[in-house]
């Protein structure tokens, strides 16, 4: 017998070890669905590049096709309760572990209840107390819920744009990430991303929110510009006015003054998001401050900023990595 064989497979094989390896090898895992597709694209840059668009779109079609086929073959796209505390209710009836949650059903937690939901191939959603959700879609290419109120914590392994949460202020579309999403009684939604990116959309308003950042969305207005959690309080208050005080130009202009004074280099991310949100006459001073915090790349000029041109090249200088956009333009949202 040789201990070397047991140690690293070298030397004279020990027959008993060999036999146990063969017997026990049947318990080895098969790689399952947690693998992520690699589809790195810049949030904005690729929009103007047709070839890149086609390449990514083709990859996504292939990916979604594969996911669809895999789910169709395995028949796994159902929501189940993976864990429950207290007395959560589905359509008014108390729900327990392993119960299913079906399209059209509402799920509610009271002050003493919480739920963990799971979909194979998608991930898990933890539902906090005092929350109310409805399941809208549950098929291989799109899983869609409405968060009426309360808080969910999502850990999603599905491909980009498969999991979507509707809130009163925006759609929150997962791009492979972990995040917390809260909807207040007033319908304001607050998103905090811990891993990856989330795409918030409402009409023509869009915010791509990376890890470490947050964004609010309001009914009738949509998502505001995102900000990093460690931005100053004055910065965040000024941003709130810029994002949502849509009818008061004077207040917005004053808020921009405060925001620019408070901005740190890290907040260049928020400033870049504001080019499409500030009034045209304010774009010049926004450009000037941003250029101090993060010098513009070659080819991006003050004139570009004043005219509302594409700022894609500047995004690349942020060093935030790339959002994993699977689809360009508005993704298909199943009704």
């Amino acid at each position, binding site marked *: 017998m040789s201990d070397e064989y047991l140690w690293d497979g070298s030397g004279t094989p020990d027959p008993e070890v060999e036999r146990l*390896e063969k017997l026990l090898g049947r318990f*080895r*895992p098969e790689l399952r669905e947690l*693998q*992520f597709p*690699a589809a*790195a694209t810049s949030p904005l840059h690729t929009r103007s590049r047709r070839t890149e668009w086609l390449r990514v779109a083709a990859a996504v079609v292939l990916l979604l096709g594969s996911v669809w086929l895999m789910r169709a073959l395995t028949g796994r796209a159902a929501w189940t309760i993976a864990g429950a505390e207290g007395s959560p209710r589905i359509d008014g009836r108390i729900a327990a572990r392993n119960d299913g949650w079906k399209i059209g059903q509402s799920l509610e937690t009271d002050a003493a209840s919480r739920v963990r939901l799971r979909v194979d191939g998608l991930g898990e959603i933890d539902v906090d107390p005092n929350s109310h959700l409805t399941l809208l879609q549950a098929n291989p290419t799109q899983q869609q819920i409405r968060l009426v109120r309360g808080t969910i914590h999502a850990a999603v*392994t599905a491909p980009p744009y498969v999991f979507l949460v509707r809130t009163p202020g925006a759609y929150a579309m997962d791009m*492979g990430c972990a995040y917390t999403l809260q909807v207040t009684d007033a319908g304001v939604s607050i998103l905090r991303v811990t891993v*990856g990116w989330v795409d918030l959309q409402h009409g023509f308003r869009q915010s791509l929110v990376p890890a470490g950042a947050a964004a609010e969305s309001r009914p009738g207005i949509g998502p505001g510009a995102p900000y990093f959690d460690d931005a100053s309080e004055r910065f965040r208050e000024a941003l709130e006015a810029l994002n949502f005080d849509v009818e008061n130009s004077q207040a917005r202009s004053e808020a921009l003054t405060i925001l620019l004074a408070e901005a740190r280099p890290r907040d260049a991310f928020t400033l870049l998001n504001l080019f499409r949100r500030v009034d045209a006459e304010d774009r010049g001073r926004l450009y000037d401050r941003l250029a101090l915090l993060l010098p513009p790349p070659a080819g991006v000029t003050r004139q570009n900023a004043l005219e509302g041109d594409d700022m894609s090249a500047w995004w690349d200088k942020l060093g935030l990595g790339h959002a994993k956009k699977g689809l360009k333009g508005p993704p298909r949202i199943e009704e």
Partner: protein
Amino acid sequence: MPANHSMGDFSQDAELVQAARGGDRAAFGELYERYVRMVHGVLLAHVPYAEVDDLVQDVFLIMLRRLDSLREPTAFAGWLLAIARNRAHDFHRRPREAAEFQDTAGRNDPDEQEARAALEAIQSLPEAYRETLSLRLVEGMTGPEIAARTGLTPASVRVNLHRGMKQLREKLGKSIAHE
């Protein structure tokens, strides 16, 4: 000797962790591939086989949720190992989960029966030996790979393998003698 496990050092882990935090799905996928066998082997040392696949998924979803809280990305392997062990510990703290376990698959296949008996024997060994033997005999990792993945010293892994195998032989010998 199967040894598909990529050895890669901890600095590679750190790069993958940083990329995964930024939403790089390929990086997350690579971390999964690098560590799925370690997580599987550790869980298999502690919980019933039929529960392991679901718990592996749990561990990687917990990892995804908490990746932002990992302060030192080079410590990823030990951190993931702790999540796996905690998840196995949680499993046994929940009597409902344990009571629900009923696994009768393959009970009529003699090889399957023998394999399950060997697995149960490994699970009955002292803690220090069962994980190491599970990683070696079930997952097919070598001693050096186990040391690299778990953070144990090679000497400790070697001792665990040697003593664990000795106890396993005794247990399997006894069970054969009882039949």
